[in-house]
Protein backbone atom coordinates (compact mmCIF):
# COMPACT_ATOMS: atom_id res chain seq x y z
CA UNK A 1 0.00 0.00 0.00
CA UNK A 2 2.60 2.46 1.09
CA UNK A 3 4.80 1.52 -1.78
CA UNK A 4 2.15 2.29 -4.35
CA UNK A 5 1.32 5.62 -2.76
CA UNK A 6 4.95 6.56 -2.93
CA UNK A 7 5.07 5.79 -6.61
CA UNK A 8 1.96 7.78 -7.28
CA UNK A 9 3.05 10.85 -5.39
CA UNK A 10 6.68 10.84 -6.34
CA UNK A 11 6.66 12.54 -9.75
CA UNK A 12 4.05 15.11 -8.78
CA UNK A 13 6.41 18.02 -9.22
CA UNK A 14 6.94 17.04 -12.87
CA UNK A 15 4.52 17.73 -15.76
CA UNK A 16 1.55 16.21 -13.94
CA UNK A 17 0.61 19.64 -12.62
CA UNK A 18 0.48 20.87 -16.17
CA UNK A 19 -2.02 18.20 -17.13
CA UNK A 20 -4.36 19.11 -14.31
CA UNK A 21 -4.42 22.76 -15.36
CA UNK A 22 -5.02 21.98 -19.02
CA UNK A 23 -8.31 23.45 -20.18
CA UNK A 24 -11.01 21.12 -21.39
CA UNK A 25 -10.68 22.67 -24.85
CA UNK A 26 -7.09 21.57 -25.07
CA UNK A 27 -7.99 18.06 -23.95
CA UNK A 28 -10.60 17.94 -26.65
CA UNK A 29 -8.03 19.08 -29.19
CA UNK A 30 -5.59 16.36 -28.15
CA UNK A 31 -8.16 13.62 -28.12
CA UNK A 32 -9.64 14.56 -31.50
CA UNK A 33 -6.42 15.67 -33.12
CA UNK A 34 -6.86 13.50 -36.22
CA UNK A 35 -10.46 14.52 -36.74
CA UNK A 36 -9.59 18.20 -36.37
CA UNK A 37 -6.76 18.02 -38.89
CA UNK A 38 -8.98 16.06 -41.26
CA UNK A 39 -11.71 18.67 -40.95
CA UNK A 40 -9.28 21.51 -41.51
CA UNK A 41 -7.86 19.93 -44.65
CA UNK A 42 -10.95 18.33 -46.13
CA UNK A 43 -13.76 20.74 -45.38
CA UNK A 44 -12.68 23.56 -47.74
CA UNK A 45 -12.11 21.09 -50.56
CA UNK A 46 -15.32 19.17 -49.98
CA UNK A 47 -17.31 22.35 -49.55
CA UNK A 48 -15.97 23.63 -52.85
CA UNK A 49 -16.59 20.26 -54.45
CA UNK A 50 -20.20 20.39 -53.20
CA UNK A 51 -20.69 23.85 -54.71
CA UNK A 52 -19.22 22.89 -58.08
CA UNK A 53 -20.12 19.20 -58.50
CA UNK A 54 -22.31 17.89 -55.68
CA UNK A 55 -24.98 20.54 -55.76
CA UNK A 56 -25.32 20.74 -59.58
CA UNK A 57 -25.61 16.95 -59.75
CA UNK A 58 -28.28 16.80 -57.04
CA UNK A 59 -30.07 19.68 -58.73
CA UNK A 60 -29.94 17.78 -62.02
CA UNK A 61 -31.58 14.72 -60.44
CA UNK A 62 -34.12 16.98 -58.78
CA UNK A 63 -35.02 18.42 -62.20
CA UNK A 64 -36.08 14.93 -63.25
CA UNK A 65 -39.35 15.46 -61.36
CA UNK A 66 -40.18 18.63 -63.24
CA UNK A 67 -41.44 19.53 -66.63
CA UNK A 68 -39.11 22.32 -67.63
CA UNK A 69 -38.65 23.09 -71.29
CA UNK A 70 -36.47 26.10 -72.00
CA UNK A 71 -34.65 27.99 -69.28
CA UNK A 72 -37.00 30.98 -69.59
CA UNK A 73 -40.03 28.79 -68.83
CA UNK A 74 -41.04 28.10 -65.24
CA UNK A 75 -40.69 24.51 -64.00
CA UNK A 76 -43.76 22.46 -63.17
CA UNK A 77 -43.70 19.58 -60.69
CA UNK A 78 -45.00 16.42 -62.38
CA UNK A 79 -43.92 13.60 -60.07
CA UNK A 80 -42.72 10.60 -62.09
CA UNK A 81 -44.11 11.50 -65.51
CA UNK A 82 -40.62 11.91 -66.98
CA UNK A 83 -39.66 8.44 -65.80
CA UNK A 84 -42.88 6.95 -67.16
CA UNK A 85 -42.13 8.59 -70.50
CA UNK A 86 -38.59 7.21 -70.42
CA UNK A 87 -39.85 3.64 -70.48
CA UNK A 88 -42.64 4.30 -72.99
CA UNK A 89 -40.81 6.40 -75.57
CA UNK A 90 -38.53 4.26 -77.78
CA UNK A 91 -36.30 7.32 -78.20
CA UNK A 92 -35.20 6.81 -74.60
CA UNK A 93 -35.34 3.14 -73.73
CA UNK A 94 -33.75 2.25 -77.07
CA UNK A 95 -30.97 4.74 -76.37
CA UNK A 96 -30.40 3.13 -72.97
CA UNK A 97 -30.31 -0.34 -74.50
CA UNK A 98 -27.90 0.91 -77.19
CA UNK A 99 -25.64 2.41 -74.52
CA UNK A 100 -25.51 -0.93 -72.77
CA UNK A 101 -24.71 -3.14 -75.75
CA UNK A 102 -22.45 -0.61 -77.41
CA UNK A 103 -20.58 -0.13 -74.15
CA UNK A 104 -20.34 -3.90 -73.70
CA UNK A 105 -19.12 -4.37 -77.27
CA UNK A 106 -16.47 -1.65 -76.98
CA UNK A 107 -15.31 -2.96 -73.60
CA UNK A 108 -15.18 -6.54 -74.83
CA UNK A 109 -13.17 -5.82 -77.97
CA UNK A 110 -10.86 -3.37 -76.20
CA UNK A 111 -10.10 -5.69 -73.32
CA UNK A 112 -9.59 -8.82 -75.41
CA UNK A 113 -7.39 -7.05 -77.96
CA UNK A 114 -5.54 -5.31 -75.15
CA UNK A 115 -4.97 -8.63 -73.40
CA UNK A 116 -3.53 -10.18 -76.53
CA UNK A 117 -1.25 -7.20 -77.02
CA UNK A 118 -0.16 -7.33 -73.37
CA UNK A 119 0.84 -11.00 -73.67
CA UNK A 120 2.93 -10.16 -76.74
CA UNK A 121 4.45 -7.11 -75.03
CA UNK A 122 5.38 -9.31 -72.08
CA UNK A 123 7.66 -11.43 -74.28
CA UNK A 124 11.42 -10.77 -74.35
CA UNK A 125 11.27 -8.42 -77.32
CA UNK A 126 13.76 -5.83 -78.41
CA UNK A 127 12.11 -2.40 -78.34
CA UNK A 128 9.09 -3.29 -76.17
CA UNK A 129 9.04 0.26 -74.86
CA UNK A 130 8.51 1.59 -78.38
CA UNK A 131 5.54 -0.71 -78.92
CA UNK A 132 4.03 0.30 -75.59
CA UNK A 133 4.31 3.97 -76.57
CA UNK A 134 2.91 3.50 -80.07
CA UNK A 135 -0.10 1.61 -78.77
CA UNK A 136 -0.80 4.15 -76.05
CA UNK A 137 -0.48 7.27 -78.22
CA UNK A 138 -4.15 7.39 -79.37
CA UNK A 139 -5.22 7.65 -75.72
CA UNK A 140 -3.46 10.97 -75.22
CA UNK A 141 -5.01 12.68 -78.25
CA UNK A 142 -8.06 14.88 -78.01
CA UNK A 143 -11.43 13.37 -78.93
CA UNK A 144 -12.49 16.53 -80.72
CA UNK A 145 -9.39 16.61 -82.91
CA UNK A 146 -9.14 12.93 -83.75
CA UNK A 147 -12.85 12.42 -84.46
CA UNK A 148 -12.46 15.17 -87.04
CA UNK A 149 -9.61 13.22 -88.62
CA UNK A 150 -11.83 10.14 -88.74
CA UNK A 151 -14.58 12.24 -90.32
CA UNK A 152 -12.07 13.44 -92.86
CA UNK A 153 -11.06 9.86 -93.67
CA UNK A 154 -14.76 8.95 -93.99
CA UNK A 155 -15.74 11.92 -96.14
CA UNK A 156 -18.17 10.77 -98.83
CA UNK A 157 -16.69 12.55 -101.84
CA UNK A 158 -12.98 12.85 -101.17
CA UNK A 159 -12.46 10.70 -98.10
CA UNK A 160 -9.42 8.46 -98.10
CA UNK A 161 -11.37 5.27 -97.52
CA UNK A 162 -13.84 5.95 -100.32
CA UNK A 163 -10.97 6.95 -102.62
CA UNK A 164 -9.34 3.64 -101.77
CA UNK A 165 -12.55 1.72 -102.45
CA UNK A 166 -12.86 3.49 -105.82
CA UNK A 167 -9.27 2.70 -106.71
CA UNK A 168 -9.84 -1.03 -106.23
CA UNK A 169 -13.02 -0.83 -108.27
CA UNK A 170 -15.63 -0.92 -105.49
CA UNK A 171 -18.59 1.40 -105.05
CA UNK A 172 -17.95 4.24 -102.57
CA UNK A 173 -20.10 4.05 -99.42
CA UNK A 174 -22.05 6.93 -97.89
CA UNK A 175 -21.14 6.03 -94.32
CA UNK A 176 -23.39 8.67 -92.79
CA UNK A 177 -26.58 7.11 -94.24
CA UNK A 178 -26.09 3.71 -92.67
CA UNK A 179 -26.80 2.73 -89.08
CA UNK A 180 -24.46 -0.24 -89.33
CA UNK A 181 -21.49 1.82 -90.49
CA UNK A 182 -22.25 4.57 -87.99
CA UNK A 183 -22.08 2.10 -85.11
CA UNK A 184 -19.11 0.35 -86.73
CA UNK A 185 -16.99 3.50 -86.87
CA UNK A 186 -17.98 4.58 -83.36
CA UNK A 187 -16.80 1.20 -82.10
CA UNK A 188 -13.61 1.37 -84.20
CA UNK A 189 -12.83 4.84 -82.88
CA UNK A 190 -13.46 3.86 -79.26
CA UNK A 191 -11.33 0.73 -79.52
CA UNK A 192 -8.60 2.70 -81.31
CA UNK A 193 -8.50 5.09 -78.39
CA UNK A 194 -8.79 2.58 -75.58
CA UNK A 195 -6.77 -0.47 -76.60
CA UNK A 196 -3.35 0.90 -75.62
CA UNK A 197 -4.43 1.82 -72.09
CA UNK A 198 -6.03 -1.59 -71.63
CA UNK A 199 -2.84 -3.28 -72.86
CA UNK A 200 -0.71 -1.32 -70.38
CA UNK A 201 -2.94 -2.22 -67.43
CA UNK A 202 -3.01 -5.90 -68.41
CA UNK A 203 0.75 -5.78 -68.84
CA UNK A 204 1.17 -4.40 -65.33
CA UNK A 205 -1.02 -7.24 -64.13
CA UNK A 206 0.99 -9.87 -65.99
CA UNK A 207 4.21 -8.55 -64.53
CA UNK A 208 2.82 -8.61 -61.00
CA UNK A 209 2.10 -12.36 -61.11
CA UNK A 210 4.50 -14.20 -58.78
CA UNK A 211 7.24 -15.84 -60.89
CA UNK A 212 7.75 -18.68 -58.40
CA UNK A 213 4.19 -19.84 -59.13
CA UNK A 214 5.20 -20.46 -62.74
CA UNK A 215 8.17 -22.51 -61.58
CA UNK A 216 5.93 -24.49 -59.24
CA UNK A 217 3.46 -25.12 -62.05
CA UNK A 218 6.31 -26.25 -64.32
CA UNK A 219 7.45 -28.76 -61.70
CA UNK A 220 3.87 -29.97 -61.47
CA UNK A 221 3.99 -30.58 -65.21
CA UNK A 222 1.91 -27.71 -66.53
CA UNK A 223 2.48 -26.79 -70.16
CA UNK A 224 2.16 -23.33 -71.66
CA UNK A 225 -1.64 -23.49 -71.63
CA UNK A 226 -1.74 -24.98 -68.13
CA UNK A 227 0.39 -22.14 -66.79
CA UNK A 228 -1.90 -19.63 -68.44
CA UNK A 229 -5.04 -21.35 -67.12
CA UNK A 230 -3.97 -22.04 -63.54
CA UNK A 231 -1.40 -19.35 -62.77
CA UNK A 232 -1.79 -16.31 -65.03
CA UNK A 233 -5.58 -16.03 -65.17
CA UNK A 234 -6.21 -16.49 -61.41
CA UNK A 235 -3.34 -14.08 -60.71
CA UNK A 236 -4.98 -11.47 -62.92
CA UNK A 237 -8.28 -11.67 -61.07
CA UNK A 238 -8.03 -8.43 -59.05
CA UNK A 239 -6.79 -6.45 -62.02
CA UNK A 240 -9.49 -7.95 -64.23
CA UNK A 241 -12.19 -6.80 -61.83
CA UNK A 242 -10.73 -3.33 -61.80
CA UNK A 243 -10.29 -2.99 -65.54
CA UNK A 244 -13.68 -4.47 -66.48
CA UNK A 245 -15.55 -2.20 -64.08
CA UNK A 246 -13.73 1.00 -65.02
CA UNK A 247 -13.86 0.25 -68.76
CA UNK A 248 -17.58 -0.53 -68.63
CA UNK A 249 -18.36 2.60 -66.63
CA UNK A 250 -16.40 4.59 -69.20
CA UNK A 251 -17.77 2.86 -72.30
CA UNK A 252 -21.41 3.00 -71.27
CA UNK A 253 -21.08 6.78 -71.01
CA UNK A 254 -19.53 7.27 -74.44
CA UNK A 255 -21.05 10.27 -76.14
CA UNK A 256 -18.36 12.53 -77.58
CA UNK A 257 -17.62 10.20 -80.49
CA UNK A 258 -21.35 9.98 -81.23
CA UNK A 259 -21.68 13.75 -81.04
CA UNK A 260 -18.74 14.43 -83.33
CA UNK A 261 -18.95 11.47 -85.71
CA UNK A 262 -22.59 10.63 -86.42
CA UNK A 263 -24.49 13.29 -84.48
CA UNK A 264 -26.87 10.48 -83.51
CA UNK A 265 -27.94 9.99 -87.12
CA UNK A 266 -29.28 8.54 -89.29
CA UNK A 267 -32.75 9.07 -87.78
CA UNK A 268 -31.40 8.97 -84.24
CA UNK A 269 -30.46 5.30 -84.68
CA UNK A 270 -26.96 5.75 -83.25
CA UNK A 271 -28.05 7.81 -80.27
CA UNK A 272 -26.74 6.56 -76.94
CA UNK A 273 -28.29 7.63 -73.65
CA UNK A 274 -25.65 10.14 -72.58
CA UNK A 275 -25.80 11.70 -76.03
CA UNK A 276 -29.58 11.83 -75.61
CA UNK A 277 -29.08 13.64 -72.27
CA UNK A 278 -26.71 16.09 -73.94
CA UNK A 279 -29.18 16.64 -76.74
CA UNK A 280 -32.14 17.13 -74.40
CA UNK A 281 -30.17 19.59 -72.31
CA UNK A 282 -28.48 21.69 -75.00
CA UNK A 283 -30.49 21.33 -78.18
CA UNK A 284 -34.09 20.82 -77.01
CA UNK A 285 -33.74 22.45 -73.55
CA UNK A 286 -35.88 19.66 -72.09
CA UNK A 287 -34.20 19.89 -68.71
CA UNK A 288 -36.66 17.58 -66.96
CA UNK A 289 -36.07 14.64 -69.28
CA UNK A 290 -32.30 15.22 -69.15
CA UNK A 291 -32.40 14.99 -65.36
CA UNK A 292 -34.59 11.87 -65.34
CA UNK A 293 -32.39 10.13 -67.93
CA UNK A 294 -29.25 10.96 -65.97
CA UNK A 295 -30.66 9.43 -62.82
CA UNK A 296 -31.56 6.24 -64.71
CA UNK A 297 -28.08 6.13 -66.25
CA UNK A 298 -26.47 6.52 -62.82
CA UNK A 299 -28.66 3.75 -61.37
CA UNK A 300 -27.82 1.39 -64.24
CA UNK A 301 -24.09 2.01 -63.85
CA UNK A 302 -24.27 1.58 -60.08
CA UNK A 303 -26.31 -1.62 -60.15
CA UNK A 304 -24.11 -3.07 -62.87
CA UNK A 305 -20.97 -2.34 -60.89
CA UNK A 306 -22.30 -3.87 -57.69
CA UNK A 307 -23.46 -7.02 -59.48
CA UNK A 308 -20.21 -7.46 -61.34
CA UNK A 309 -18.18 -6.90 -58.18
CA UNK A 310 -20.26 -9.45 -56.24
CA UNK A 311 -20.00 -12.00 -59.02
CA UNK A 312 -16.27 -11.63 -59.50
CA UNK A 313 -15.45 -11.83 -55.79
CA UNK A 314 -17.69 -14.87 -55.29
CA UNK A 315 -16.48 -16.97 -58.23
CA UNK A 316 -13.02 -17.60 -56.86
CA UNK A 317 -13.12 -21.35 -57.43
CA UNK A 318 -11.02 -21.39 -60.58
CA UNK A 319 -7.78 -20.93 -58.68
CA UNK A 320 -8.35 -23.93 -56.40
CA UNK A 321 -8.50 -26.61 -59.11
CA UNK A 322 -5.38 -28.73 -58.63
CA UNK A 323 -2.99 -29.24 -61.51
CA UNK A 324 -2.79 -32.86 -62.66
CA UNK A 325 0.59 -34.43 -62.11
CA UNK A 326 2.34 -35.99 -65.05
CA UNK A 327 2.71 -39.67 -64.13
Amino acid sequence: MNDRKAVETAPLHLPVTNVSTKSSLKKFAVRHKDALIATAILSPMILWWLVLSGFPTMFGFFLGFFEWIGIADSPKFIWFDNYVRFFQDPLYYEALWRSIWLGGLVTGITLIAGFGAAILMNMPLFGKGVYRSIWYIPAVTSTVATTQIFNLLLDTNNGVINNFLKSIGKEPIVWQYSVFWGVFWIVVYSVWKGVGGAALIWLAGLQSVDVSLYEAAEIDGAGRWGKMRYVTLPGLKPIATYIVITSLIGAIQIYEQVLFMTGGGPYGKTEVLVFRIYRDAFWDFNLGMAGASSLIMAVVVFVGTVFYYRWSTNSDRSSTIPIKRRS
Partner: protein
Amino acid sequence: MKDTLSRKVAVQLKPGNLFAHIVLLGIGLVLLYPLVFMILAGFYTKTEFTSSIIGLIPIAKAPTLDNFTVLFSGTADSSIQRYFVNSGYRTMYNTFWALLTSLLAGYVFARLRFKWKDQLFLILLGTQMIPGTIALIPTYLEFARWPFAGGNDIFTGGKGILDTWWVYFIGGPSLNIMGAFLVKQSIEKIPYELDEAAKVDGAGTLRIIFQILLPLQMPIMAFIAITTALATWNDFATPFFYTSSDKLQTLPAAITRLSSAAASPGAIPNWPLIITLGLGMTIPALLIFFFFQKYIVQGLANTGIKG
Protein backbone atom coordinates in the same frame (compact mmCIF):
# COMPACT_ATOMS: atom_id res chain seq x y z
CA MET B 1 30.84 -9.50 -78.24
CA LYS B 2 29.75 -10.36 -81.72
CA ASP B 3 28.64 -13.72 -80.48
CA THR B 4 26.24 -12.26 -77.90
CA LEU B 5 24.89 -9.85 -80.46
CA SER B 6 24.10 -12.58 -82.93
CA ARG B 7 22.56 -14.61 -80.15
CA LYS B 8 20.35 -11.66 -79.25
CA VAL B 9 19.26 -11.34 -82.86
CA ALA B 10 18.59 -15.07 -82.97
CA VAL B 11 16.36 -14.78 -79.89
CA GLN B 12 14.38 -12.02 -81.57
CA LEU B 13 13.96 -14.21 -84.67
CA LYS B 14 12.51 -17.20 -82.84
CA PRO B 15 9.08 -17.89 -84.38
CA GLY B 16 7.11 -16.79 -81.31
CA ASN B 17 9.04 -13.56 -80.87
CA LEU B 18 9.03 -12.80 -84.58
CA PHE B 19 5.26 -13.23 -84.61
CA ALA B 20 4.97 -10.82 -81.66
CA HIS B 21 7.14 -8.27 -83.45
CA ILE B 22 5.05 -8.45 -86.61
CA VAL B 23 1.71 -8.19 -84.82
CA LEU B 24 2.73 -5.39 -82.45
CA LEU B 25 4.41 -3.35 -85.18
CA GLY B 26 1.72 -3.98 -87.80
CA ILE B 27 -1.26 -3.08 -85.61
CA GLY B 28 0.78 -0.29 -84.04
CA LEU B 29 1.24 1.33 -87.45
CA VAL B 30 -2.49 1.02 -88.12
CA LEU B 31 -3.15 2.73 -84.77
CA LEU B 32 -0.77 5.54 -85.70
CA TYR B 33 -2.26 5.98 -89.16
CA PRO B 34 -4.84 8.73 -88.35
CA LEU B 35 -2.12 10.83 -86.71
CA VAL B 36 0.33 10.29 -89.58
CA PHE B 37 -2.44 11.25 -91.96
CA MET B 38 -3.12 14.42 -89.96
CA ILE B 39 0.53 15.47 -90.02
CA LEU B 40 0.92 14.76 -93.75
CA ALA B 41 -2.34 16.55 -94.54
CA GLY B 42 -0.97 19.53 -92.64
CA PHE B 43 1.42 20.19 -95.55
CA TYR B 44 -1.43 20.73 -98.03
CA THR B 45 -2.64 24.11 -99.16
CA LYS B 46 -6.36 24.62 -98.84
CA THR B 47 -6.97 24.60 -102.60
CA GLU B 48 -4.90 21.52 -103.26
CA PHE B 49 -6.62 19.66 -100.42
CA THR B 50 -10.11 20.26 -101.74
CA SER B 51 -9.30 19.86 -105.44
CA SER B 52 -7.02 16.80 -105.58
CA ILE B 53 -7.85 13.20 -104.79
CA ILE B 54 -6.45 12.28 -101.39
CA GLY B 55 -4.76 8.88 -101.34
CA LEU B 56 -4.00 6.56 -98.44
CA ILE B 57 -0.66 8.29 -97.94
CA PRO B 58 -1.31 11.93 -98.76
CA ILE B 59 1.80 13.63 -100.17
CA ALA B 60 1.29 17.24 -101.13
CA LYS B 61 2.58 18.19 -104.59
CA ALA B 62 3.33 21.73 -103.44
CA PRO B 63 4.03 21.30 -99.73
CA THR B 64 3.61 24.36 -97.56
CA LEU B 65 4.44 25.17 -93.95
CA ASP B 66 1.68 27.78 -93.72
CA ASN B 67 -0.59 25.53 -91.70
CA PHE B 68 2.09 25.12 -89.06
CA THR B 69 3.16 28.77 -88.89
CA VAL B 70 -0.48 29.74 -88.52
CA LEU B 71 -0.40 28.08 -85.12
CA PHE B 72 1.93 30.82 -83.91
CA SER B 73 0.80 33.79 -85.96
CA GLY B 74 -2.95 33.25 -86.15
CA THR B 75 -5.20 33.94 -89.10
CA ALA B 76 -7.20 37.01 -90.00
CA ASP B 77 -10.39 35.81 -88.34
CA SER B 78 -9.15 33.66 -85.49
CA SER B 79 -6.32 34.26 -83.05
CA ILE B 80 -4.99 30.76 -82.71
CA GLN B 81 -2.00 31.70 -80.60
CA ARG B 82 -4.39 33.10 -78.00
CA TYR B 83 -6.23 29.76 -77.85
CA PHE B 84 -2.84 28.16 -77.35
CA VAL B 85 -1.93 30.44 -74.45
CA ASN B 86 -5.34 29.99 -72.83
CA SER B 87 -5.15 26.22 -73.12
CA GLY B 88 -1.64 26.25 -71.66
CA TYR B 89 -2.44 28.43 -68.64
CA ARG B 90 -5.59 26.48 -67.92
CA THR B 91 -3.67 23.23 -68.03
CA MET B 92 -1.00 24.45 -65.59
CA TYR B 93 -3.56 25.92 -63.20
CA ASN B 94 -5.70 22.79 -63.03
CA THR B 95 -2.68 20.52 -62.72
CA PHE B 96 -1.35 22.50 -59.78
CA TRP B 97 -4.63 22.27 -57.90
CA ALA B 98 -5.18 18.62 -58.75
CA LEU B 99 -1.77 17.78 -57.27
CA LEU B 100 -2.34 19.81 -54.12
CA THR B 101 -5.86 18.55 -53.38
CA SER B 102 -5.09 14.92 -54.13
CA LEU B 103 -1.98 14.92 -51.97
CA LEU B 104 -3.70 16.51 -48.98
CA ALA B 105 -6.91 14.50 -49.25
CA GLY B 106 -5.01 11.29 -49.96
CA TYR B 107 -2.99 11.81 -46.78
CA VAL B 108 -6.10 12.43 -44.70
CA PHE B 109 -7.82 9.28 -45.95
CA ALA B 110 -4.72 7.11 -45.68
CA ARG B 111 -3.32 8.15 -42.31
CA LEU B 112 -5.80 9.94 -40.06
CA ARG B 113 -8.40 8.15 -38.00
CA PHE B 114 -11.79 9.75 -37.59
CA LYS B 115 -15.45 8.82 -37.53
CA TRP B 116 -17.24 8.11 -40.82
CA LYS B 117 -13.95 8.16 -42.73
CA ASP B 118 -14.58 5.04 -44.81
CA GLN B 119 -18.20 5.96 -45.43
CA LEU B 120 -17.24 9.45 -46.57
CA PHE B 121 -14.61 8.07 -48.89
CA LEU B 122 -16.98 5.50 -50.39
CA ILE B 123 -19.61 8.16 -51.04
CA LEU B 124 -17.06 10.37 -52.77
CA LEU B 125 -15.82 7.47 -54.90
CA GLY B 126 -19.40 6.49 -55.71
CA THR B 127 -20.11 9.92 -57.17
CA GLN B 128 -17.49 9.16 -59.82
CA MET B 129 -19.95 6.75 -61.40
CA ILE B 130 -22.55 9.46 -62.13
CA PRO B 131 -22.41 10.71 -65.71
CA GLY B 132 -20.97 14.22 -65.70
CA THR B 133 -23.41 15.38 -68.37
CA ILE B 134 -26.16 15.79 -65.80
CA ALA B 135 -24.33 18.62 -64.06
CA LEU B 136 -23.75 20.69 -67.21
CA ILE B 137 -27.07 22.57 -67.24
CA PRO B 138 -27.30 23.06 -63.45
CA THR B 139 -23.71 24.34 -63.50
CA TYR B 140 -24.65 26.74 -66.26
CA LEU B 141 -27.56 28.00 -64.14
CA GLU B 142 -25.31 28.24 -61.09
CA PHE B 143 -22.70 30.24 -62.97
CA ALA B 144 -25.38 32.54 -64.36
CA ARG B 145 -26.85 33.08 -60.88
CA TRP B 146 -23.51 33.48 -59.08
CA PRO B 147 -24.18 35.98 -56.27
CA PHE B 148 -22.85 39.52 -56.73
CA ALA B 149 -20.99 38.78 -59.94
CA GLY B 150 -21.37 40.12 -63.45
CA GLY B 151 -24.15 42.56 -62.58
CA ASN B 152 -26.15 40.15 -60.41
CA ASP B 153 -27.80 41.70 -57.34
CA ILE B 154 -27.99 38.48 -55.36
CA PHE B 155 -29.01 35.92 -57.90
CA THR B 156 -30.44 37.71 -60.90
CA GLY B 157 -29.94 40.73 -63.08
CA GLY B 158 -26.70 39.93 -64.90
CA LYS B 159 -24.88 37.06 -66.52
CA GLY B 160 -23.04 36.01 -63.36
CA ILE B 161 -19.60 34.61 -64.02
CA LEU B 162 -20.53 33.20 -67.42
CA ASP B 163 -18.10 34.24 -70.12
CA THR B 164 -15.46 35.48 -67.67
CA TRP B 165 -12.11 34.09 -66.58
CA TRP B 166 -13.79 32.88 -63.37
CA VAL B 167 -15.27 30.00 -65.34
CA TYR B 168 -11.73 28.62 -65.55
CA PHE B 169 -10.42 29.67 -62.14
CA ILE B 170 -13.32 28.52 -60.06
CA GLY B 171 -12.90 24.79 -60.53
CA GLY B 172 -9.34 24.73 -59.20
CA PRO B 173 -9.64 24.24 -55.43
CA SER B 174 -12.29 21.55 -55.76
CA LEU B 175 -11.44 18.07 -54.49
CA ASN B 176 -9.86 15.73 -57.05
CA ILE B 177 -11.41 12.43 -56.01
CA MET B 178 -9.61 10.02 -58.34
CA GLY B 179 -6.29 11.63 -57.46
CA ALA B 180 -7.03 11.37 -53.75
CA PHE B 181 -7.85 7.69 -54.23
CA LEU B 182 -4.52 7.02 -55.97
CA VAL B 183 -2.48 8.91 -53.37
CA LYS B 184 -4.33 7.09 -50.58
CA GLN B 185 -3.48 3.72 -52.13
CA SER B 186 0.12 4.75 -52.54
CA ILE B 187 0.59 6.19 -49.03
CA GLU B 188 -0.92 3.09 -47.46
CA LYS B 189 1.99 1.07 -48.86
CA ILE B 190 4.47 3.20 -46.89
CA PRO B 191 5.06 1.94 -43.33
CA TYR B 192 3.45 4.09 -40.67
CA GLU B 193 6.69 3.98 -38.62
CA LEU B 194 8.09 6.60 -40.99
CA ASP B 195 5.42 9.09 -39.87
CA GLU B 196 5.96 8.12 -36.24
CA ALA B 197 9.68 8.71 -36.46
CA ALA B 198 9.13 12.13 -38.00
CA LYS B 199 6.60 12.95 -35.27
CA VAL B 200 9.09 12.00 -32.57
CA ASP B 201 11.55 14.36 -34.22
CA GLY B 202 8.97 17.10 -33.87
CA ALA B 203 7.55 17.29 -37.38
CA GLY B 204 4.03 18.65 -37.77
CA THR B 205 1.36 17.36 -40.14
CA LEU B 206 2.33 19.63 -43.03
CA ARG B 207 5.99 18.76 -42.67
CA ILE B 208 5.14 15.05 -42.68
CA ILE B 209 3.04 15.47 -45.82
CA PHE B 210 5.41 17.64 -47.81
CA GLN B 211 8.85 16.58 -46.61
CA ILE B 212 8.46 12.93 -45.64
CA LEU B 213 5.63 11.51 -47.78
CA LEU B 214 5.66 13.70 -50.89
CA PRO B 215 9.15 12.64 -52.07
CA LEU B 216 7.94 9.03 -51.96
CA GLN B 217 4.80 9.85 -53.97
CA MET B 218 6.59 11.22 -56.99
CA PRO B 219 5.58 8.48 -59.49
CA ILE B 220 1.90 8.71 -58.57
CA MET B 221 2.03 12.53 -58.47
CA ALA B 222 3.55 12.51 -61.94
CA PHE B 223 0.76 10.22 -63.09
CA ILE B 224 -1.90 12.55 -61.65
CA ALA B 225 -0.16 15.55 -63.21
CA ILE B 226 -0.06 13.95 -66.66
CA THR B 227 -3.63 12.69 -66.64
CA THR B 228 -4.96 16.02 -65.34
CA ALA B 229 -2.85 17.99 -67.79
CA LEU B 230 -4.01 15.89 -70.74
CA ALA B 231 -7.65 15.96 -69.61
CA THR B 232 -7.61 19.76 -69.25
CA TRP B 233 -5.68 20.26 -72.46
CA ASN B 234 -8.24 18.14 -74.33
CA ASP B 235 -11.34 19.41 -72.47
CA PHE B 236 -13.79 21.04 -74.84
CA ALA B 237 -16.87 21.18 -72.62
CA THR B 238 -16.01 23.92 -70.11
CA PRO B 239 -15.02 26.62 -72.60
CA PHE B 240 -17.62 25.49 -75.11
CA PHE B 241 -20.60 25.73 -72.77
CA TYR B 242 -19.71 28.52 -70.38
CA THR B 243 -17.85 31.06 -72.53
CA SER B 244 -18.59 32.73 -75.82
CA SER B 245 -16.14 35.59 -76.38
CA ASP B 246 -13.12 34.92 -78.57
CA LYS B 247 -10.52 35.97 -76.00
CA LEU B 248 -11.60 33.15 -73.67
CA GLN B 249 -11.51 30.30 -76.18
CA THR B 250 -9.19 27.33 -76.00
CA LEU B 251 -8.02 25.05 -78.82
CA PRO B 252 -10.55 22.20 -78.37
CA ALA B 253 -13.43 24.65 -78.05
CA ALA B 254 -12.31 26.35 -81.25
CA ILE B 255 -12.26 23.02 -83.07
CA THR B 256 -15.69 22.18 -81.70
CA ARG B 257 -17.07 25.48 -82.94
CA LEU B 258 -15.51 25.03 -86.36
CA SER B 259 -16.75 21.49 -86.74
CA SER B 260 -20.26 22.19 -85.49
CA ALA B 261 -20.37 25.06 -87.97
CA ALA B 262 -19.28 22.52 -90.55
CA ALA B 263 -22.07 20.19 -89.50
CA SER B 264 -24.76 22.67 -90.51
CA PRO B 265 -26.28 21.81 -93.87
CA GLY B 266 -24.54 23.10 -96.99
CA ALA B 267 -21.38 24.23 -95.23
CA ILE B 268 -17.98 23.12 -96.50
CA PRO B 269 -15.74 22.28 -93.56
CA ASN B 270 -12.54 24.30 -93.38
CA TRP B 271 -10.49 21.12 -93.20
CA PRO B 272 -7.00 22.67 -93.33
CA LEU B 273 -7.80 24.93 -90.38
CA ILE B 274 -9.35 22.06 -88.45
CA ILE B 275 -6.29 19.94 -89.18
CA THR B 276 -4.00 22.77 -88.10
CA LEU B 277 -5.81 23.17 -84.79
CA GLY B 278 -5.83 19.43 -84.36
CA LEU B 279 -2.08 19.34 -84.86
CA GLY B 280 -1.69 22.20 -82.40
CA MET B 281 -3.55 20.12 -79.84
CA THR B 282 -1.96 16.79 -80.57
CA ILE B 283 1.74 17.70 -80.76
CA PRO B 284 2.04 19.13 -77.20
CA ALA B 285 0.06 16.16 -75.85
CA LEU B 286 2.49 13.81 -77.57
CA LEU B 287 5.45 15.72 -76.16
CA ILE B 288 4.03 15.51 -72.62
CA PHE B 289 3.50 11.83 -73.18
CA PHE B 290 7.01 11.11 -74.47
CA PHE B 291 8.71 12.98 -71.65
CA PHE B 292 6.73 11.30 -68.89
CA GLN B 293 5.71 7.96 -70.37
CA LYS B 294 7.67 6.04 -67.72
CA TYR B 295 5.33 7.47 -65.10
CA ILE B 296 2.22 6.66 -67.11
CA VAL B 297 3.19 2.99 -67.23
CA GLN B 298 4.03 2.96 -63.51
CA GLY B 299 0.91 4.90 -62.62
CA LEU B 300 -1.39 2.61 -64.57
CA ALA B 301 0.28 -0.32 -62.83
CA ASN B 302 -0.42 1.26 -59.44
CA THR B 303 -4.04 2.02 -60.23
CA GLY B 304 -4.69 -1.53 -61.28
CA ILE B 305 -3.00 -3.79 -58.84
CA LYS B 306 -4.92 -2.92 -55.72
CA GLY B 307 -8.19 -2.56 -57.61
